[in-house]
């Protein structure tokens, strides 16, 4: 988080309100995730929907609970590099099965 323990203490009340809002949003999104799984969608659509909701939830946790939204550039640069390697890691097995699995 960008704030240190020395400063911005006055902003904590505002932060707490944000935490509660995010908490409610995460709860609602969890219910939505389960509800979507009850609708029998095709594999590509089900995967897309589930990962989309999970990504929104993950972003909320990272941005607000982990305070990435106000983090220093050095940390963001480290994470950007991590994301690049992560995407390559995930893309490799996906690419090897681009011959029909995702169409089923």
């Amino acid at each position: 988080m960008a704030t240190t323990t020395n400063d911005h203490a006055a902003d904590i009340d505002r932060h707490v309100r944000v935490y509660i809002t995010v908490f409610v949003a995460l709860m609602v999104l969890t219910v939505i995730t389960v509800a979507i799984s009850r609708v029998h969608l095709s594999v590509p659509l089900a995967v897309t929907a589930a990962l989309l909701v999970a990504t929104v939830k993950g972003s909320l946790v990272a941005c607000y609970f982990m305070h990435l939204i106000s983090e220093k550039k050095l940390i963001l640069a480290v994470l950007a590099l991590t994301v690049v390697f992560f995407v390559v890691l995930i893309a490799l097995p996906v690419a090897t099965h681009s011959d029909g699995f995702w169409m089923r």
Partner: protein
Amino acid sequence: MEIPYTVEVRRDTGLTNGRIGIWLFLASEVMLFGALFASYILIRTGAVSWPRGDTILDVPLATFNTLVLISSSVTMVMAWASLMRHRFGTFRIYMGLTILFGFVFLTVKYFEYSHHLHIGEVPSTNNFLAIYYTLTGLHMLHVAGGMAVNAYLWGPGAKLWQTNPQWFTNRVEHSGLFWHFVDLVWIFLFPTLYLL
């Protein structure tokens, strides 16, 4: 010898050593779980057939556990916010709740594992169960590790608050970052294993 830059920020990074350290560690954790997710994709897409998670696993229990872990993330960040407000007593309550939620999560997983093992569903049964046990087992180890650190900060480690409150607050913040990461991993594990 005193540990440098635990409270004051380094001029070159603009960060305390602890904060950049925990983020570098989390970056390595992303790659660790990323490798396992990649393996999951490779195994699943290469399989002739693959069971839907909800035909084997207990979705209501896992949904409950998801809500528990999300709640623990909120109590963790509230514990840190309490220290920022100089309310040590409130910190103790929120940190205690975080540890309790972690314990509830592990207890539910224990019952889940027990059920599967009891009916002979072991990692060697099939690839689905192998990847299920590997991913959730590693995640559980992370939950247990986070709980151990949080318990230390709740108990004996809290003495630091008396002598150096800012350093203690930073420690809680770093422990919180790890705990939120554990929550984040579960947010992706839950639909991947249980719902798809």
